[in-house]
């Protein structure tokens, strides 16, 4: 009897959460948007303040882990169906997925290892340009170009990591900023990257003869074509999430955390500090490259403006707001910080002003992020 009760409670909680999310996605008025936001903030505060509540919830999810994941996964898969007559909302979900993928990767560096890398836009851009050049110039298929873009990003991450190792903290951030700027200027000035005009005419991917530009009809529901890209990025996010969790619960995640807390003590435990820092760079950069390729293929046109400094700052903010070192928290941070500015379009002129206030309130209320890193549990 107790077990049935706890299962119903779990399913009910998840359902309420998703109902709120869908309400937020379709909300038009400012009042509704703000109500949802403050609801999330208050929930996070309540979890942070009352240990018993957060522990009870954690136990509830741990007890029925598979069910919780299945029910939640069903909702995530169903979102394009629920929002099928709102292509813009589905596109927003795709963008949110894109930023989730960037933020989870950046957390390897910023959250786990305390390497505040400001060159996310560059690695992401390298992936996008690799994809665009290979598909436009050579006509290679998306499915070959995708992993190559990941590898190109990874190679760049490795090359970026090497000289950066000579520096620490603020100086490291400065080096990454400089590299980001160099890449941005190169993209703008090289002739083979199209200069400021970028690269146009990137073909949409195809799978088994059907084009990603055509919407699918499933169970009699006509999905907008944006749903195709949503499911694509969802698959990448899923793989990346699993990789992130595995890294976190392994000697790699422990070594990264050790380096974050005390480099000298870490090296005296046998951790190759330089090697593990570079590993944080290239594992992150691999996913940035993949995501860049997906972005290029989804919009069909890229230019240097898509890979400017501001993008790197936004992804760092997503990690900070979500909670450094907590992959699930980073997902929440990335989704919120993608959707909030878009939803705030209703207030037009005050949009950025309001966005800044929301960020400030969140960080003042939860200085370590909405969901900080949890204590590792072993069995």
């Amino acid at each position, binding site marked *: 009897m107790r077990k049935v009760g706890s299962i119903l409670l779990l399913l009910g909680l998840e359902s309420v959460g998703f109902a709120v999310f869908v309400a937020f996605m379709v909300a038009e008025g400012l009042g509704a948007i703000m109500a949802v936001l403050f609801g999330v903030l208050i929930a996070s505060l309540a979890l942070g303040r009352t240990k018993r509540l957060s522990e009870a919830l954690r136990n509830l999810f741990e007890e029925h882990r598979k069910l919780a994941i299945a029910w939640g996964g069903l909702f995530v898969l169903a979102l394009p169906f629920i929002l099928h007559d709102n292509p813009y909302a589905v596109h927003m979900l795709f963008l949110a997925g894109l930023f989730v993928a960037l933020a989870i990767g950046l957390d390897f560096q910023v959250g786990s290892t305390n390497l505040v890398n400001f060159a996310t836009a560059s690695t992401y851009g390298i992936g996008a340009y690799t994809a665009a050049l290979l598909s436009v110039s050579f006509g290679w298929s998306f499915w070959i170009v995708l992993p190559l873009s990941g590898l190109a990003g990874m190679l760049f991450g490795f090359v970026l990591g090497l000289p950066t190792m000579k520096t620490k903290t603020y100086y490291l951030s400065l080096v990454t900023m400089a590299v980001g700027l160099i890449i941005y200027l190169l993209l703008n000035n090289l002739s083979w990257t199209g200069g400021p005009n970028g690269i146009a005419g990137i073909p949409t991917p195809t799978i088994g003869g059907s084009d990603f530009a055509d919407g699918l009809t499933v169970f009699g529901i006509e999905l907008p074509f944006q749903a195709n890209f949503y499911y694509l990025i969802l698959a990448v996010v899923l793989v990346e999430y699993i990789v992130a969790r595995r890294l976190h619960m392994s*000697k790699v995640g422990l*070594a990264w955390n*050790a380096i974050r807390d005390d480099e000298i003590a870490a090296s005296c435990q046998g951790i190759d500090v330089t090697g593990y820092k570079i*590993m944080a760079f290239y594992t992150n950069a691999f996913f940035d490259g993949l995501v860049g390729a997906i972005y290029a293929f989804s919009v069909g046109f890229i230019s240097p403006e898509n890979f400017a400094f501001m993008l790197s700052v936004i992804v760092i903010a997503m990690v900070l707001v979500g909670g450094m070192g907590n992959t699930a928290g980073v997902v929440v941070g990335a989704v919120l910080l993608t959707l909030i500015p878009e939803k705030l379009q209703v207030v037009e002129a005050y949009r950025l002003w309001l966005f800044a206030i929301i960020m400030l309130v969140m960080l003042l209320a939860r200085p370590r992020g909405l969901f900080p890193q949890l*204590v590792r*549990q072993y069995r």
Partner: protein
Amino acid sequence: MSFGGLTALDQVDLRVHAGETVGLIGPNGAGKSTFFNVVTGIYAPSGGQVLFRGDDLGRLKSHQVVRRGIARTFQNNRLFWQLSILDNVLIGMHLRQKATLADVIVRYGRTRRELNACAREAIEILNHFSPDLAAQHSRSVLDLPQGDRRRVEICRALASRPTLLLLDEPSAGMSPDETDKLMEDIAIVRRKFSGITIVVIEHDMGVIDKIADRVVVFNFGRKLTEGTFAEIARDPAVVEAYLGEDDGA
């Protein structure tokens, strides 16, 4: 070993035999901690050799020195402050886990079993010293009093299964009660990890008297003398090093 114009360690000739516990004493600035930092690869020596079981450690980096079987603690505990007690000890087993990056991503089941086995062993190590610490292994190390922090640091050093353990002033900042427990802890180390060699820097002569088989005295970056505690305590040169020039009073 020198820093700019300052020679911090000069012609130190020191031998440590397997299985013994050596006390390293000397006034502040005598070069004791510098000596540890040279041995563990934090500083590269400007001359001379550090031989460990016949290998020269001089050119090795810190993480390579650990691989040879040398572990240490620090004067002001350097724990991983944002992590739990268990994670701190588990990080000491970094080199003992064979998993590579590919194993972590692709063969996670095996990696996880290895990690869990290490976690159980880490709890066992904690249990040697304090069943309380072992039971509360998920607590943050920040919540612990000084004595327990030092204990976790010793457990972390032991986790790598070292043959040589370097303790840098383990009683620093401890109350007399905590210092008594520390001496018991070191006795436990020698009992449970038999054959381990220990070099301990200490200012508390009570601790040195009780645990050291042999005492080495440093002064101004040089080895002043060595011997048993009783011999050292009688040596006028040692007394002078600690109390300063005798004016014939």
